[in-house]
Structures are given as C-alpha cells and as structure tokens.
C-alpha cells in the first residue's frame, strides 16, 4: 500500500522536477520563459503521436524532447534576436502550444497509448521498498535524477555553468568579457524546452499513457513556481517537486476514500499549495533579491 502510494508520488513528481530543472537553467541564464506549459503540452502530444506511429515509446520520448526544444526556439528567436517582451512571448508560446497540440492530437483522442516500460536494475531492484521505488522505474525517472545531479554539477562545477551564471547575473559585463550572451541564452532556452518536452512525454507515455487535450493541466505553471520555490538551486527542485507530487497524489487518494470534502476542492489543492508556497518563499525579500538572477527577464541588445 505504502509502496503503491509512493510510486504514484514519484510518477506525479517526475514531470514537475524535469520541467522545473529545464526552466531553472533557462532562468539562470537570465531568460524568463513563461511558456513551459505550452512546450510541455507540445512534448506530450508529439511524444504520443510518434509512439503511435512507430510503436516504440523510446522514439516517442526523443520526439517529445525534440518538439519541446524546437518550440522553445520560437521563443528564443523572438526574445533573444528580436528582443520581444519575454513575459508576453512566453504567454504566446503557451497559447499557441495549447492550440497546436489540440489540433495535432485531435485524431488521437480516446486511443489507447503504449506505456513506457520500466527498466529493472539488476540486484538493486530486489531491495525491499527501495528497489521497486527507485530501481524498477522507467527511463524518464532515471533521467530526472541524472538531470538533477548533472545540472548541479554543471552550474556549480563547470566553467560553462559559471559563464551561464555570470550572464544571468549581469549580461552587459559578461558581454564585455567576451562571453557570447545570445548564443548561451539560445542554448539555455533550448535546454529548457527539451526538458519541458521530456516532461510532457512523461505525461502521455507514463503518467496516463493516452492523449487528453490540455493534459498538462497547469503543471507547466507549477514548474515555474517550483523554480522560485527552489531559489534557483537544482537539489531543492527535487525536494519541491516531490512535495508537490505528494500533495497532488494525496488529494487523489483523499478523493478515492471519499472523506466528505467535494472532489473539486481537493483538485484545487495543488494550485492552492502553489500559491501558499509562493507566499512563504517571496515573503522574505532579502533572500529573493539575493537568489534571483539579476538580469532575469531583461532584454539584451549587444552594442556593435
């Protein structure tokens, strides 16, 4: 019973963690992409479609990643090359993603999907409780853990990560030092898109292996809140993601038990929790000011 609940928590948390990690990298480079929801839903529909066409969910995963990255490129072109307003462009990305995914996915509504199968890790998978939870999981879960560690290493140990943090702190100075601000930001935006696409693929291939219109259901926005919650640190994204996963699974189980609270109120819990968490985190202006990448959301036009 406990094992089953924890498993669902992990499944619910994984897309949040992955999407938030991608956005974290984007924001560390100083770009605010509010289009996570749109990129995620595009990843979900393309992953599902590719899986249905090829019959191989792994191709679906790749297609989802590619769709998210390609979609984010649109955002990158507008905000980085044409210096359009990042907030508005992010919204546009979400609106377009929701429309386009509905259009692409129309013929797939109601079709049974193919689930991404777990990969057992020999020996480790036999440990009681931990084995089934951590070592009998699907590829995307393993990727999410690898991403947390990899991004932490990248940001705080690697030179490119250092450059990226420098750009996020002060793009004019980074430019003066000869760091290619625009190119790095393009890469960071595309990485964010790829992660959102992967998170979307998890939704349509693992979480509920089918296509439902608007199936991201605000997870992209929750991922954005998670980045703030984690104060732009990858390890805290992991903790926050699992916290949110627990809340959303908790409310599902509460609904199943029928504890007398209307299901709609329980369904609203993750959204209400997001607001509460944002209040707690933002409340301390000092920490927010120190942690927020200083050039976040500000346009950059290099002088030539």
């Amino acid at each position: 019973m406990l094992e089953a609940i924890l498993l669902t928590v992990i499944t619910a948390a994984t897309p949040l963690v992955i999407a938030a990690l991608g956005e974290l990298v984007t924001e560390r480079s100083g770009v605010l992409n509010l289009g996570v929801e749109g990129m995620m839903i595009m990843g979900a529909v393309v992953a599902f479609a590719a899986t249905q066409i090829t019959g191989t969910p792994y191709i679906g995963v790749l297609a989802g990643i590619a769709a998210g990255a390609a979609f984010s490129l649109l955002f990158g072109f507008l905000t980085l090359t044409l210096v359009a307003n990042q907030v508005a462009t992010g919204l546009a990305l979400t609106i377009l993603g929701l429309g386009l995914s509905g259009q692409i996915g129309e013929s797939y509504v109601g079709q049974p999907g193919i689930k991404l199968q777990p990969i057992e890790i020999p020996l480790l998978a036999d440990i009681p409780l931990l084995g089934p939870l951590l070592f009998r999981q699907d590829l995307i879960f393993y990727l999410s853990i690898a991403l947390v560690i990899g991004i932490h290493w990248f940001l705080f140990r690697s030179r490119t990560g250092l450059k990226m943090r420098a750009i996020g702190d002060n793009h004019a100075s980074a430019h003066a030092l000869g760091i290619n601000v625009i190119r790095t930001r393009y890469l960071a935006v595309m990485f964010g898109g790829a992660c959102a696409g992967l998170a979307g693929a998890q939704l349509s291939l693992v979480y509920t292996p089918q296509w439902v219109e608007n199936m991201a259901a605000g997870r992209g926005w929750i991922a954005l809140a998670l980045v703030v919650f984690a104060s732009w640190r990858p390890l805290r994204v992991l903790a926050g993601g699992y916290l949110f996963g627990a809340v959303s699974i908790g409310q599902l189980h509460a609904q199943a038990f029928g504890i007398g609270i209307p299901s709609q109120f329980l369904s609203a819990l993750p959204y209400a929790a997001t607001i509460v968490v944002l209040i707690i985190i933002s409340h301390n202006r000092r920490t927010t000011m120190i942690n927020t990448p200083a050039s976040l959301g500000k346009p950059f036009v290099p002088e030539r």
Partner: protein
Amino acid sequence: MRIELQKRAQPSPLFSFVSPLLALVLTLFFGGIMFWMLGKQPVDALYSFFVEPLLEVWSLHELAVKAAPLILIGVGLSICYRSNNWNIGAEGQFTIGAITGSILPVLYPEWHSLMILPLMLVMGMIGGALYAGIPALLKTRFNTNEILTSLMLVYIAQLYLDWLVRGPWRDPQGYNFPQTKSFVPEAVLPEILDSGRAHLAIVFALVAAVALWFMMRFMLKGFEVTVLGQSERAGRFAGFSAKRMVWFSMLLSGALAGLAGISEVSGSIGHVQPTISPGYGFTAIIVAFLGRLNPLGIIASGFVLALTYLGGEAAQLSIGISEKVSRVFQGLLLFFVLSCDTLIHYRIKIVTQKLRGGAAHHA
C-alpha cells in the same frame, strides 16, 4: 548571416500603425500554409474562416457577442500591462464575476424586479475585482509574483464553479444536468437590436474602452499608469505609488473581467453551467497586445479575435476543419504581433558578411 538590431532614436510612428496590420497579414499567410498542409484549398479555407462570417446579419450579431467580453477584459488588461502588472488570471476573474453576479437570480429565482439586473452587474464587478484583489494583495504585501498567483487562481475558480453547478446551485428539476435554473427575464441582459442576439455587453465594452482611452490620453491617472510602467523609480520621484497602482490596475481589470463574466452568463447563456467561456480571459491577452495596449486599438483587435472564434465554428461546419484551428490562429497572431513590434523600436539589419576593421583604411 545574422540579424542586427539598431535602436531608433524615436519609436517609429509609421510602424506603430503598420505593425499590427503586418502581423495580421503574416498570420493569414501562415494560416493558409497550415490549411494547405491539412489538405484544404488555402484561399477557400481562409475565405470561409474570415470572410463568410461577416456576410450575414445574424453572424455579425454573434461577432458582437464574442467581441464584447474580449474588449471588456482586454482594455482592463491593457491598463495592467501598461503599468507593468502582469495579470494573466482574467479567466478566473471572469468566472468569479459570473458566479457572484448570478447569486441573485440563482438563489432568489422568484424575485422579479427591475433592480435585479443592475445589482447583478455591480455584484459581478465586485466579485471579479475582489478575486483580482488576491494577487494584488499578495504582490503588495508579500512580494509574490502576480503572474503565477493570478494564473493558479484561474484553476481554482473553475473548480469552484464546477462544484457550485454540480452541487448546491444545481437545478433540482434539471434532469441531473450540471446547471442552474434559467434566469428570470428581468435578470437577462437585453438585446440591443431586434435583428439578432447582440446584447448590452458590447455597449459596456465600447463605453469602457472609450472611457479608458480618455483616461490614458488626457488624465493625470493615465500619465501615472504609463510612468509607473516605464520606471517604478521615476514614478516614485513623481510622487506616484507603485503599490497603489498594483491595486488600481488589478481591481480595475478584475472588475471589467467580472462584468464580462456576468454579462456573458446573463446575456448569452441565461443560466450558470460548468463551462461559461471558450477562454476569453486568455484570448483577451492577445487582444490587448494586438491593440498595442491602446483602448481604441483594442476595440478593433477585439473584433478581429472574435472573428477567429466565429471563423473556427464556421469552418468546422463548411469545410470540416476542427474549431481548434482558431486557437492556433490566435497563438500565431500574438507571435507575429510581438515580432512586428520590434520594428517600432529598432531598425532591423540583416548582415550577410562580416566586415571587420582594416577593410576601410583611409589616410
């Protein structure tokens, strides 16, 4: 090859006017390509999408019905965005406005009075304003990002509406349909002409747009909105308060979204049901930007976006394309609007070959 931007000394007045039109043309062009990829004749499809709905009186009425909430919400949002407050939860404020505005006709279905309609409208505005007041309170009090909070509140509002119409507000004689009793005739927003469905909401929308245009153009309040949106610090120097502006813009846009909500329920639907909006609150964001955040421009852009809804419905009937195409059109349009706006502030140079120092040596 690369693209270089050169800041213009002054924003180009020509491109301020041309840019939305250019965006429309580009959207139509790419829309045509999309139809072609779906295996339709692009010209025919575009015709049935964008022209046919304009040819009949009844559908012009429908256009006004759909444009009204878009304009009402859009002008409110334009004040928010001008003042740098990113309310993207108008859909939630619309929903709550519809709920609070419907309290009287749903809970007191026997009350017949001429007072009921004005009261409903006022209550709808108050409901929308209070709901927008939540992100305003959180932003001013706790420094919380209003984008995320206002959006989360959309989901909460929709779930609350869902609970209401399936629970306490459900019509007991409604064959278990999740909807309330139909409003009494006194609670229905009257139509403006005999020839079709267009009701008073479009009048509210036009009045609101003109009033806000007047405020932005002539009043010190409009100046305050613009200054605080450009630079909070300069606004403080002028003696304006950014916090008060958060409240002003959020409450104003919330009230207008609430008015749109109750008008929609009262004028177009006639009862409350789980789904009362095809995403007006989000589409209005596009309306605001396409109208260049200018209330008069928003009147025009509101009708353009209303046409995408109507065209979607028409195209579904006549050429069998999904109405979801309209969402794609809306997204494309916003993208092109934002790209074309670059032309207002920058000259765009396409550099094909790198010319570097030493090439033009002169004594």
